[in-house]
């Protein structure tokens, strides 16, 4: 498994969030998640301008073996989506924490980020789950 970047925060359900310099939040799924889903073949993303609510499904990733909901770590308005994934969903398998990002949101309640797991806590969670 690849290193977990230190600037990410995680949901227990394996989504990550990164607060960018402009205060916006980029969302993706963890490397652990892509590894278990297997080859991704289709991604359904929200539209720019959509309002999303923390804890609700706002995207779908489909691998050869399963369709999974991606839950929003924070509430807010979608300002950008990774359109490159339409043609190359496998980017998520190759670079889950980088080029495989899903969408960017302007957070309406940034405090929600405090409820997320720090990288070490997430790593610990994965480790516990291994037992």
């Amino acid at each position, binding site marked *: 498994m690849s290193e977990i970047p230190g600037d990410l925060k995680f949901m*227990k359900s394996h989504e990550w969030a990164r607060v960018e310099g402009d205060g916006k939040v980029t969302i993706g799924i963890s490397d652990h998640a892509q590894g278990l889903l297997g080859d991704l073949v289709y991604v359904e993303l929200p539209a720019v301008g959509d309002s999303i609510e923390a804890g609700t499904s706002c995207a779908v990733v489909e691998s050869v073996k399963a*369709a999974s909901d991606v839950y929003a770590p924070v509430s807010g308005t979608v300002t950008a989506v990774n359109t490159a994934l339409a043609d190359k969903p496998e980017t998520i398998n190759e670079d889950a924490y980088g080029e495989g990002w899903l969408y960017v949101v302007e957070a309406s309640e940034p405090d929600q980020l405090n409820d997320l797991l720090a990288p070490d806590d997430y790593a610990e969670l994965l480790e516990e789950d291994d037992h």
Partner: protein
Amino acid sequence: MPAKLSPRPPEKHRGHGPLLHRVSVRWPGGRIAAEAIWDNRVFPRTDGAMTRKTILNDSHRALGAKMVDFGGWDMPIHYGSQIEEHHQVRRDAGMFDVSHMTVVDLGGGEVRPFLRRLLANSIDKLKAPGKALYACMLNDAGGVIDDLIVYWRGDDRYRLVVNASTRDKDMAWIGTQAASFDVQVEERPELSMIAVQGPAARERVLGLLDEDDAAITGKLGKFAAAELAGTRFGDLFIARTGYTGEDGFEVVVPEAHAIALWDALLAAGVKPAGLGARDTLRLEAGMNLYGQDMDETVSPYEAALGWTVSLDEGRAFNGRDLLEGQKRDGAPRQMIGLVMDEKGVLRHGQKVLTGNGEGEILSGTFSPTLGKAIAFARVPAGDVADGVRVDIRGREVPLRVVKFPFVRDGKPQ
């Protein structure tokens, strides 16, 4: 807390018969249970037994396989990328550990009469020893208990290879049926099986045999088998059969030699492929999966297996009455092949809408060769030329009805 990044709730299963269980690919801790589509034929174990391992279990793990429970067996689903393994088999050669499948040897003075009754296909199509036949084993009502391959080994000796997930009920049924014949039934759990498949598969296997054995094996026609005694891998049973739509062999090898054969194949450039690739390969090849495409509530005619039914004169076989009726009047349902040109993946249980009524997706997957979703669906009988749609999460998506195989000799059809 409800699971997040969780599988969509399974689309309502509208079929009949036994529940099609889906083994979850357990996310550690069970937080995420991604629904695996290839293991729908897994039936619940009723004996409470531990998960079984093939002799190649450590080999799979050493190759980095992701292991899952498949019909009570701990099996490799992939070794990194299911799609790459799929392409490897279509383009060169891959191998599958299929030792979990059940090998049953039959002997005795009345084997042929017994098989005439047991199978919907006619054993009398086998004119020479070494030939094989694909057939359905039906219950008295014409429903499919299992599909299998029967090999004639010579004289009164036959070999069946049946599905792993249906082993217990198959053995019970075969045992009951055999009781009124002079037939001995012997399961062969000490035999392993490796399927080597792909355009280069045969030459790779032949390269591991001595000259005489390679000559014999190289001459095998499709759906024929050879028995080689005393090879460096023990006594081998090599059949030119498979479940991928590619040329290749299925090699039955004594468990004691299975690892050596596997390692020799690896050294010869054959790459391991998991059950995930096996599922996409067989669906592209238009091959049914028991438990998903047919079961005991479905007749062969409703599962596009009419070509395996032989209504040869004077042969009383299990389920014949129902098949005669469906042959005469038409079966109420049919199985069709579908391609979705829009993005997305067709999956088992999705609702299918036709002009004649609703049906459902049986096997459905993303086809790596076509780059789009393909599926079998069971729908009401009748013309489907006026269009078929699928309900995906509340959205109706048009589908193309196509003949299958979806892929033949590595090429889209």
